[in-house]
Every structure is written in C-alpha cells, then in structure tokens.
C-alpha cells in the first residue's frame, strides 16, 4: 500500500502542496480536504471582479476539481475535517475516519471580527469565499451606499471597486493616515487622493462604534464621526491564523499565534507540515516570526512543504515581503519595512528618496515614480523601501526585495545598470536616482562613512 498524505485546506498553500507532492512522488496517495466546493481560483482578484475590471467572476477560476482528480489527487470537496488523531494517524470528516502517514495543514486564516454591537447583523460582508462573493456581486447593483471598515489593503481595493460600481463609499479607519500599519504618510497621501478621485469618502481617525440594523439587517454604521447610512458594511480587518485544528493536536504555536514551522515547513509534530496563512515564518531582517502574508508566499510555502512531505529536501528562506496593490488608479508598493515600522522596532536607518519617470519623459504615458529607500547607517545596506506611482512599481519592489536579501547597498543601486528604451524605461532609473540622492546626502552628513 502506498504512503498516504492528507492535505487539509484547498487554498493557495493546499493546492500548491498537494500538486507538488504528487508530482514529486507519484506513488504517494494525496488526499485534499476542503470545506469549500471550488479549488484553484484567485481570491485576490475578487475586488477587481466587483469593480468590473475583470469582466466575469468565472475568469478567476484557474482550474477545476476534475483536473486535479485527473492528476491523481483524491479531492474531498465540501468536506470539513473536524478532528485529527495524531497517535492513531487519522482525521475525522463527515463522521468517518481516514488514515494518513503524513499530514499537511493549510487551514488558512479567519477574518478578525469587530468587537462592537451589531456585529451579527446581516449585510456585514467579509471577502473570502468566491461563491459568497458572486452572490454579493449580484446584490451590488441594488445597493446605494457601502461602508468599508479597516485599514488593510483589501479595504482599499474594495473601496475602489465599489466606487467603480457607482456606490457611495465611506472608508473608515481609526489610524492617523491610510494604511498606517503598513505605509508611511508620504506614501499614503497620494493613495488616499487616488481613492478620493474615484469618489470614496476616506475618513481616517474614525472609530467604529457599532452597527445599526432594522429587521436583522445592517442599515447604518455608528462611528466617532457620526452615523453612516449603508446597505452593506464590508469588513477588512486583520487576518488571524486558523489554528483550531493545530491547537487541538498540540502543535506548537508561536508569538504571532500561528503554527511554528522550521525552514522545511515542518511543525513540532513528526510527519506534520504546515504552510500558508496558518504558519509563521521569519522576517529576513529581524528574524522575528510573522504571519498572514500574501498569496504568493502561501503558494511558495505550499510547494516547499509538499515537496518535503513527498520525500524531497527543500528549504524555504526567511521573507523580505515585496508587496504592492492599487489604490484606485494609483499603485503603491514596497518591501520589508518603511520608516514607521523601523521607528517602531528601533532599527537605525537612513532614508534615500528620489523621483524618476517610468518611460522616457517625452514618451506618451510616462508616469512619475517615487522611490524611498531605507538603508542601514554605515554600511548603507538596503533594509526596506516604499514606492508609489504608475507602471513598474511591482517589478521594482520585487527587484528591491531580492537584492536586499542578497545584501545590496545604496552604493550598488546608485551604480546599477538599467534598461533605457523610451516606451518602457527612462535613461535614469528611479531607484538609481533615489540611491544617488541618498549617497549625496550621506556624503554631506557623514563624509567619512560613505564608501569611496
């Protein structure tokens, strides 16, 4: 009888883990248990389908359950695992026991729910399951007003999407500036302006007090700025690791509340791996564990965990977290830390800022690209960045995260090679400009410490 691997969870991590495991070891019996009916769709695309930038929700489905069955996976859809017995090596689902030799937990996250009165009313929407999103999408045309709650990037994306659909949107957050947990005020400002340009009423420094309803359905959101009428309240607070199964079997949980794994994605129990939003991994700069990263991180972790569960030997590196998203028609992004987080952690840094253009300045469509680099004093090693502008932000953030991981300095970036081709790149690369400015400033401030 072949070895049996059970993967719990059919999101990005679970899908990647199960397919990788099967490809790495075709003799392995791989069963995937998911509480949802669908697999291999893009939840990150949901706001853009609501905003009609993606014409059809069906476009978000990248594959079918049947295709995974044809690849040799044992797909158990709409099947919730209610119990795991590590001693007997069984899981329980639909009151039946299923044996395993190896287990891979990809149970994802749950949305933080606001601890205020009325949080159980109908009409409070959380963005996660695509079927629920498709139902919600049908209701949007009959709605007039929405309140989006929470300062994480999904809230920004959902605000823009609902405004594009013609709803009056109030975006509320307690923080002093947009996305204050993630970005610095100078980067938040143009993002907020872009949302306002779409008609979103951005109300920063506004506290959620409760939800008011009639006939069991939300009709207004009570805030420190007064009552905001709405047909729906979209809640985009923090992602919390869904560790109920992990806790029940005594897996070690870390300081973020997520499952502790090592660099092979092994948990504290032999023969049990974890991947995705339910685990914590170290930040490359501080080695402090963090959790609730992006879909690409979940997918990459799933591939490593799946390969190792199938008998391979793959290592997952500490993360430098390149990130980016759209605020209305504007792009913001970065990697690692910005000024606010560096201040919070007490990490010493110097700032290098510059503004360039995304194409030759005479070429139609050229957009200003703002770059802020954070570097370690003395060595001037890159430790973080935040960017905003038009095209090319994503690629620059990916690049910066990669070179930071390999130890690049402002000196390296100031003299980097770059593509000059009028439709796609200017003579002076914006990253290069920021690094040059940073070196010049350091030369004025501390001439003896700048590399020759």
């Amino acid at each position, binding site marked *: 009888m072949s070895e049996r691997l059970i993967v719990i969870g059919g999101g990005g991590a679970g899908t990647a883990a199960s397919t990788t495991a099967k490809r790495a070891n075709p003799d392995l019996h791989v069963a995937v248990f998911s509480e949802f009916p669908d697999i291999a769709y893009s939840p990150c695309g949901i706001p853009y389908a609501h905003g009609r930038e993606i014409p059809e929700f069906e476009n978000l489905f990248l594959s079918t359950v049947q295709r995974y069955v044809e690849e040799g996976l044992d797909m158990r859809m709409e099947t919730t695992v209610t119990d795991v017995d590590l001693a007997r090596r069984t899981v329980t689902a639909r009151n039946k026991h299923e044996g395993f030799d190896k287990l891979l937990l990809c149970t994802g996250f749950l949305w933080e729910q606001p601890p205020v009165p009325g949080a159980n009313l109908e009409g409070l929407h959380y963005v996660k399951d695509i079927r629920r999103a498709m139902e919600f999408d049908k209701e949007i045309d009959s709605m007039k007003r929405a309140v989006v709650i929470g300062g994480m990037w999904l809230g920004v994306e959902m605000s823009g999407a609902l405004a594009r659909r013609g709803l009056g949107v109030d975006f509320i957050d307690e923080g002093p500036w947009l996305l204050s947990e993630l970005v610095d005020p100078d980067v938040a400002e143009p993002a907020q302006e872009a949302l306002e340009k779409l008609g979103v009423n951005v109300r920063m420094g506004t506290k959620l007090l409760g939800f008011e309803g009639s006939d069991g359905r939300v009709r207004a959101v009570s805030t420190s700025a007064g009552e905001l009428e709405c047909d729906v309240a979209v809640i985009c607070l923090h992602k919390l690791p869904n560790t109920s199964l992990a806790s029940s079997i005594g897996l070690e949980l870390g300081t973020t509340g997520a499952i502790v794994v090592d660099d092979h994605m092994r948990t504290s129990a032999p023969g049990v791996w974890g991947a995705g939003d339910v685990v914590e991994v170290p930040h490359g700069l501080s080695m402090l564990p963090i959790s609730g990263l992006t879909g690409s991180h979940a997918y990459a972790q799933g591939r490593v965990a799946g390969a190792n569960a199938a008998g391979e030997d793959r290592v997952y590196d500490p993360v430098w977290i390149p990130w980016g998203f759209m605020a209305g028609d504007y792009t913001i992004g970065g990697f690692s830390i910005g000024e606010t987080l560096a201040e919070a952690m007490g990490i010493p840094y110097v700032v290098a800022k510059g503004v360039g253009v995304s194409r030759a300045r005479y070429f139609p469509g050229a957009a200003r690209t703002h770059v802020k680099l954070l570097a370690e004093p003395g*060595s001037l090693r890159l430790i973080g960045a935040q960017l905003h502008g038009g095209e090319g932000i994503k690629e620059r953030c990916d690049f910066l995260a990669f070179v930071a991981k390999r130890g690049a300095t402002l000196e390296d970036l100031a003299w980097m090679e770059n593509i000059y081709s009028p439709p796609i790149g200017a003579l002076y690369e914006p990253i290069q400009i920021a690094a040059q400015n940073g070196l010049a400033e350091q030369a004025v401030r501390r001439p003896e410490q700048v590399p020759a």
Partner: protein
Amino acid sequence: MRAGELKHRLRARSEYALRASAMEEVARRYPGRSTKSELPRVGVFWRYVFVPLFHRVPWSFRRKAMRALKMTAQNWREDARRFGEPWRPPVQAHAIRSPHGDGRPPEAGNAAR
C-alpha cells in the same frame, strides 16, 4: 494561561505600543499628512515605561537579547549576511547548512532538533 499564549499576548501588546509611538513620531515628520488617531490608547506602563526603555537599548543588543529569549525564529537559516555586518558578496543560497547533517529523515518534526 499557557506560556505560548502569554508570549503571543505580550508580543501583541508591545508591538501595538511601539507602533503607536512610532506613528506619532513619523506624523510629526510629515506635518499635514495625518489626522488625529482614534486607535485605542496605549496603557500607561507601555507608553511611559516600556517604549522609552525599549528605545534606549541599542538595536544590536536588543537583537541579541531577542535571540537569547528565543523570540526570533528557531531552526531557520539566516540570510547571507546579518544586520550590522560589513557588506560581503552573497553566498550560495543553500550552502550554509545542510538540514540533514544530523541524519534525521525529512519528515521528522522540528521539535526533534
């Protein structure tokens, strides 16, 4: 309360206090680009004792202390170069440590280390 849960709560509270203090500092640096925060207030101990003490300790020492207290990730290979070291060329990604140098099978749990 279990030790793990206590660590989780301590981290959440300390991070919150540090972030709130940093937001005030950074807001002063960018005048006119922020509004009055309505985030829950930080407790007296965290605001007036913990945050100032935390910032008095140099980062290099704090980093060592965090490692000693096992607050940083265990059983992970660090990147090519540690914070504070002079620049040197990157090393090959997986050449630093063989994860199987101890002869354990790949499916062994990390608690076995």
